[in-house]
Each structure stands twice: as structure tokens, then as C-alpha cells.
């Protein structure tokens, strides 16, 4: 073949190749009406809800795996897979009976041995589970439907632990999967929830597909968050990952997706103007912004330096940086627990209320002996929430007269660096920003960040015995009044000693097409009860 013929042949082959594609099948439109297309908050990069504790994993897992108990909208644990429970008079022996007819997606029945293996794996990773494990006498399957958990001391928060929605949730898996090391991913994604995970259609970073499980037996009660009958209104749910908010917004407006979990605030006015869309608050429990200080190194190893930050801090500045002018989306938070929940407290919160007093804060900082040592602020720029808070903090600390060493980085690096206890100049740090879902801040059992048990505490390692005493008092509280009293004392001790600086309480929106109904506000997107007309 000569040069000219080769060129002609290549062109001809290209045309033939292109025309061959014309013969492909047309896309089926029939399935669209029973398919819900959802844009999740993040990429579903893995799907073992015990191994990976990101919220997006939990949100998908809640469709695929079921739990013995589930929180309702009143934050009360209700029976889900459990038909009944009984606790001995001394509070040491718990007996659970499974509902009849429960099946896993591979067709096998859900048995007590599956529950035992699942709770064993969960209790290795979950803070409440670890507490249970520490006082466990035995956890055994009595027969196919009955499980017995014997403890060395009473644990009144048992049902809360089994039904809570903070990660990792106590999901029930087949025994063969649950026997996997809790620090290794499971090999299959088989649950007994109302939807099956279509692993063959999973394209991590792009798409995850869930299909209705025909053999699921919902409870008779109406659904309420993770409790009640989980009746699916669609046959198929497609999660379409869209890293770009503008793209997700356009796709929703164009009808290419049905529901967007977390539209950014800037785009909400545009979405509201579209008559085919509905916009509402996503999670009434919201989020708490955090200014986390390193208690083990200067300057924040001195409580006066920490209190100086609280005295100078304007939560409104932080919240406006996060949510803009929308006053419905934020409120000041002179405490640590989620507003609107039973244990919310403002005890000791005076330091965060009223006009800010920068001069007094400067004096307090001087009393701490601060001598101009650099304050290393680790600020993740790829997370809008941490970036916005970090910018406000840099300004605040400079106005306080601190020598700010601003480290602009990404979340992956923050995750690594905040674990380092090195001194300044060797990877050490003074503060970083994060945020906690309000659902994780409703009581001390699910709230690592409020604990102050030194080396065992969350990053920053606060060591404040007064806080830990009240955590213990809450666990042992005999009734709601005693629980509340313990939390008031805890809140005050935590603010007096500044476990961390709360930057405020903020909410987020969700948006969906007008032909979708049944969407509720909650700490995670609940897909049961949602349908398309």
C-alpha cells in the first residue's frame, strides 16, 4: 500500500466505523418513571459502612442494610429488625428477638448468628460499640431468632447504640461477611434492607445503582426516619456523582436528575425561581462549625489563650462566611449540643454571647504568656466549609495580635497532619477547622469531639477531667432530668476550658423536581416513601 492509498483507506475506515455506531439500540424511556435519579453529597468510593465511616457510605448503606433499631424523627430508637427485646432486672442481660421472615438479598434468612457477627464487627469500630465491648460478658445466638447480650455492668443506652444514625451504624450483615476484619473491606455488599446494591453497575466516582428488593418485609408502622415501614415508591435509584455544583444545578433544572442532596447556598435563589423545582432545608439537625485547637502545644495549651479566642470570636462572621445572607440557615451556638434536641444547653455560654470584646481578649491572651510564637492554622481549601472558616480565623487571630502561620492545604493532608503531635516547624499544628453533623452532637455517646480524655480524645487531645466526669454522669443518669443536668454541667465545663470553639450552627438545603413526592427533612436522605408522578 502506498502513502496515498493509506490515507484514503484510513478516511474510509473512519466513516465506516462511525456509521456502524448508528445501528445501536435506542435508549429505553419506559424505566424512567420508576427510576429516581439522585445527586449525592459526595462520591460513593467504597461501600462497607463499618470499614469506611463517611456519611455518603452510611447514606447508601441505610438502603441496603437494616438495623435492629432505628431512630425516629423524635430521636427515639424504635424496633426495626427486632420484634421484641427484654432486659433483666439488674440491667445486665439483654435478649433480642428478630422479626420473622427477614431475608438477605442472596435469599438466605437473617439469623441470630448473623446479628452476633455483625454486632461484634461493629463494636470494634464504633465508640458506643467499644464501650459495650469493654463491659461485655458474652454475645451469643440463643437460637435462629434470639440473641443474648450479657454485660458486666448495666448499659442503659443500649437501644440508642443499636439504633443511632451516626457512623458507623449497627448494620446487620450475613455472618460470612461480618466475620471480615473490621479494618478490612467486606468482599460483597449483601444486606437485608429494602434496596439491593447493583455492584455490576457500580462505577465509583460516577454512578451507584440500587434496585428494589422484592422480598423485603416492611414494618406495619408508618416510616419515620430510620424507624417504621420502609416502603419503596420506586424500583430503581441511581446515584449520579457530580463534583461540580453548577452542573448538578443545571442537571436538576433540565430534568436530568430528580433530587439533589446538597445544593450550595449561592445557587439556591436560582433554583427557587424555577417553578418545576422545590427547595427546602435538608437536615433540621444541621451542622456545628468547629475551631479545633491543639491542647498539647503553645499557645493553645493555655486555657487563657483558648478563652481569648472565644471572647474575640464572632459566630456571625463565621456563619455569614458559610451561608451568606440567608438568616434561615444559621444561628449562634453558645454551647456544644445540637439546638432543638433534648440535651441542648447554653450553660456557661455567656462568653460567646453579646458584643465581642477584642481588647479584653487581647488582655487575656497576654495573661496566657503568649510571646508571638507562630500559630499554625491548617486550613483545607478544597472543602468550602473549612475554607470559609479558615479565612475568618486568619483575620481574627491577626486582630488578636497572633503570629499566624496559615497553611492552605487539602482535606486529605489535613486528615494526616492533624494526627501529628510534633512541635512547630516539624509538622505540628495549632488549630484546624472542621464541622460536625448535628445528628452526631445530640449526646456524648455519639460525640467524640466533645470528649476531653487526653490522648484518647479527638484531635487536639483536650485533657479536662471535669468534662469526662460529666460524660460519666450522663451515661449513668437514671432519668431524663438527670441526663439534662449532667449535660448542663458538661457544657459549662467544656466552655470554661474550651474543649473546642464552636463557630456556630448552620443548616443546608436540598432540592428536587416538583414531580417527586415524599422527601422528608432528616439527618440523611431517606428514600423510602419517595415516589415520582
Amino acid at each position, binding site marked *: 500500500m502506498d502513502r496515498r492509498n493509506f490515507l484514503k483507506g484510513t478516511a474510509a475506515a473512519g466513516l465506516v466505523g462511525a456509521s456502524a455506531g448508528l445501528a445501536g439500540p435506542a*435508549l429505553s424511556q419506559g424505566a424512567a418513571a420508576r427510576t429516581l435519579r439522585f445527586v449525592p453529597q459526595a462520591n460513593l468510593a467504597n461501600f462497607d459502612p463499618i470499614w469506611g465511616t463517611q456519611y455518603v457510605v452510611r447514606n447508601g448503606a441505610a438502603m441496603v442494610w437494616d438495623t435492629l433499631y432505628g431512630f425516629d424523627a423524635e430521636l427515639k430508637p424504635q424496633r426495626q429488625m427486632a420484634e421484641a427485646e427484654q432486659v433483666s432486672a439488674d440491667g445486665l442481660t439483654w435478649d433480642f428477638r428478630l422479626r420473622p421472615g427477614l431475608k438477605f438479598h442472596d435469599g438466605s434468612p437473617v439469623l441470630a448468628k448473623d446479628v452476633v457477627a455483625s454486632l461484634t464487627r461493629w463494636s470494634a469500630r464504633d465508640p458506643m460499640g467499644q464501650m459495650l465491648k469493654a463491659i461485655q460478658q458474652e454475645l451469643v445466638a440463643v437460637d435462629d431468632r434470639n440473641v443474648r447480650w450479657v454485660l458486666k455492668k448495666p448499659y442503659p443506652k443500649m437501644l440508642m447504640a443499636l439504633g443511632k444514625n451516626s457512623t458507623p451504624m449497627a448494620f446487620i450483615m450475613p455472618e460470612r461477611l461480618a466475620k471480615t476484619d473490621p479494618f478490612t473491606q467486606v468482599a460483597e455488599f449483601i444486606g437485608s434492607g429494602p434496596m439491593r446494591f447493583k455492584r455490576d453497575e457500580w462505577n465509583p466516582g*460516577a454512578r451507584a445503582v440500587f434496585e428494589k428488593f422484592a422480598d423485603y418485609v416492611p414494618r406495619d408502622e408508618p416510616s419515620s426516619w430510620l424507624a417504621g415501614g420502609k416502603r419503596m415508591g420506586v424500583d430503581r435509584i441511581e446515584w449520579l456523582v457530580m463534583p461540580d455544583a453548577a*452542573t448538578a444545578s443545571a442537571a436538576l433544572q*433540565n430534568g*436530568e436528575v430528580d433530587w439533589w442532596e446538597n445544593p450550595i447556598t449561592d445557587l439556591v435563589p436560582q433554583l427557587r425561581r424555577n417553578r418545576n423545582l422545590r427547595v427546602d432545608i435538608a437536615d433540621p439537625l444541621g451542622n456545628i462549625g468547629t475551631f479545633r485547637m491543639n491542647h498539647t502545644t503553645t499557645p493553645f495549651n493555655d486555657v487563657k489563650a483558648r478563652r481569648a479566642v472565644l471572647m474575640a470570636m464572632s459566630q456571625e462572621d463565621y456563619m455569614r462566611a458559610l451561608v451568606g445572607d440567608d438568616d434561615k440557615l444559621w444561628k449562634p451556638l453558645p454551647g456544644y449540643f445540637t439546638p432543638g434536641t433534648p440535651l441542648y444547653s447554653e450553660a456557661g455560654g455567656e462568653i460567646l454571647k453579646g458584643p465581642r470584646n477584642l481588647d479584653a481578649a487581647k488582655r487575656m491572651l497576654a495573661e496566657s504568656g503568649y510571646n508571638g510564637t507562630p500559630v499554625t492554622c491548617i486550613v483545607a481549601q478544597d472543602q468550602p466549609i473549612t475554607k470559609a472558616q479558615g479565612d475568618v480565623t486568619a483575620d481574627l487571630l491577626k486582630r488578636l495580635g497572633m503570629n499566624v502561620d496559615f497553611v492552605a492545604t*487539602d482535606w*486529605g493532608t489535613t486528615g494526616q497532619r492533624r494526627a501529628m503531635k510534633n512541635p512547630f516547624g516539624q509538622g505540628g499544628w495549632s488549630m484546624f477547622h472542621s464541622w460536625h453533623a448535628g445528628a*452526631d452532637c445530640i449526646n456524648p455517646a455519639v460525640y467524640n469531639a466533645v470528649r476531653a480524655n487526653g490522648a484518647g480524645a479527638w484531635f487536639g487531645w483536650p485533657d479536662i477531667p471535669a468534662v469526662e466526669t460529666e460524660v460519666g454522669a450522663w451515661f449513668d443518669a437514671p432519668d431524663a432530668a438527670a441526663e439534662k443536668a449532667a449535660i448542663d454541667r458538661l457544657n459549662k465545663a467544656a466552655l470554661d476550658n474550651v474543649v473546642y470553639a464552636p463557630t456556630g450552627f448552620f443548616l443546608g438545603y436540598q432540592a428536587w423536581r416538583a414531580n417527586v413526592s415524599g422527601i422528608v427533612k432528616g439527618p440523611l436522605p431517606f428514600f423510602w416513601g419517595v415516589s415520582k408522578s
Partner: protein
Amino acid sequence: MFAYIVRRVLATIPVMAIVALFVFSLLYIAPGDPAAVIAGDQATPADVERIRASLGLDRPFLIRFGEWVWNILNGDMGVSIFTNLPVTTMIKQRIEPTLSLMILTLCLAITIAVPMGVIAAWKQGTWIDRAVMGFAVLGFSVPVFVVGYVLAYIFALELDWLPVQGYTAFSQGFFPWLENLILPSIALGGVYIALIARITRATMLEVLQQDYIRTARAKGAGQTNILFLHALKNAAVPIVTVIGIGIALLIGGAVVTESVFAIPGLGRLTVDAILRRDYPVIQGVVLLFSFIYVLVNLLIDLLYTLFDPRIRY
């Protein structure tokens, strides 16, 4: 020729080895910890440490590098830390959208840019020339994502002609495939069109001054024949070179374009992997891109012989 191809293919081996060493070392010293990402925000330092150990990330550099190289030599690119899927499977899932986007952009760019450059050279100094060069400056100056948003707003939201996002596999039909790729290709093609149009114009201007062009005119050859048969063929070598070099632009641009149009391609896979520190995936994708680039350069060198018979290997 065959001996030349074999030599060039063999020469890719040390190149790939250097790339492999560079990528692995860079990731080793880069900050960030996949274990911290996996464990989640509420995890304790002890949990993070356990996960790091279970992933083998606490082992010495040389052991990890040696193991990785050995596996690569055996055709195993490893398993994603996060998805637990083989890297080859993830690449297979993502390669079609990226190749489709790049090929369509390439076709679009060549089809538009080469005639633009030829006409601009032919009409040098006129408003047509200035318009073409003005467009080229715009193509270079406006970022891909801005073009993407504007196109999506006009053609998807306002006119409702094309989808905003996503990808339809070629196996599901040519037109559905094309429908999803038109806007991304135009967005990604802007800078590429500008580059090719400018080099085509510059090369054509030089060729059009040659004696053989004057001879062709003297023999009565038509303008179209002179431009496209005589001049363009002789200007093809630098144009093809720039098209080849521009593949790197396409790879970089695909990362942004795939994010803007939510196309599940290798570009987005790379970004996701970098943000999560999914080392095996980053290493696999970078090696693949390097290999593609080396291969494209080889192809370009071979194409020279088709356009210029004086070139022999």
C-alpha cells in the same frame, strides 16, 4: 521502518521506568493519608493507625516500590485502596468516555482549525485573517470551564437541545453518544482549535512564499488546489507535530471538562484518586497517560513519512 518502530518501542521501556519511579516517589513524599480519609472525621488516631497498617502503608519505601514494580511487570496494577476494585477494572470502566471525548475533540479541532488557518493565511491581512486570529486568542484565553458553563446554559438550559451532563456508551448508539459529547468537545476543543489554527496559518504563510507555489500558479492551478493539495501537504509536518504535542493539552483539559460535564472518564478518576490519596489508582492512571503520550509521539513520527516522502527511518 520496522527496525525503527522496534527501537522506539524499546526506548519507551526506560521512559516508563523513570515515570514509574518518579510517580511512586512523588506520592510517597507527598503529604496526605488515605487511612485518615477512609476512617472518617470521627475516627480516633488509633483507628487511623490500624487502617494504615492493614493497607500496608506503614511499610518501608523500597519494599512497597519493589512489590509494585513486580506486580506491574506481571500485568497487575494493584487494587484501589478505596473501592477494593482492581485498578485495571477501574481504568476499563473509565477509558471509553475519555477516549471518546479526546477523539471527537481531535476530529472537531482538525476539521475546524486547519481550514481556518489555511483561509487566514490565504487572506492574510484582511478582516477574515484578523477574525480567525481573534478567535484563536479567545480560544487560548477563555478557560475550558467558562466555555463549558456558557455552552451548557445556552444549549441545554435555554434551548433544551442537548443534555447538561453524563455520557452514553457508543454501544448504545451513535447519536446518543454524540449528543452527550458535543458540548464537552466544543468546550475542550477551543484551545486546541486556536493552537492548530495559528500553527497552520504560520506554516501556510511560509509555504505560500515558496517557488513551487508560484510555479503552480503559473501552470494555471486553481486556488483550492494550490491551498489544499500543494501548500497544505507541504505544511503538514509542523501541523501534525503540534497536533501531537496538543494531546497533552487534551489530557489536561479532559480533567476539567469531565468535571464540568460530569463525564465518568479517566480525568475525573485521576482527580478523585489524588484527593483521596488512592495511590494505586494515581500510579496506574499516570502510567497509562504517559504510555499514551509516548505512543502518540511515535505515531506522529511515523506520520511524517506519509506527508513527506523525503523522510525515511
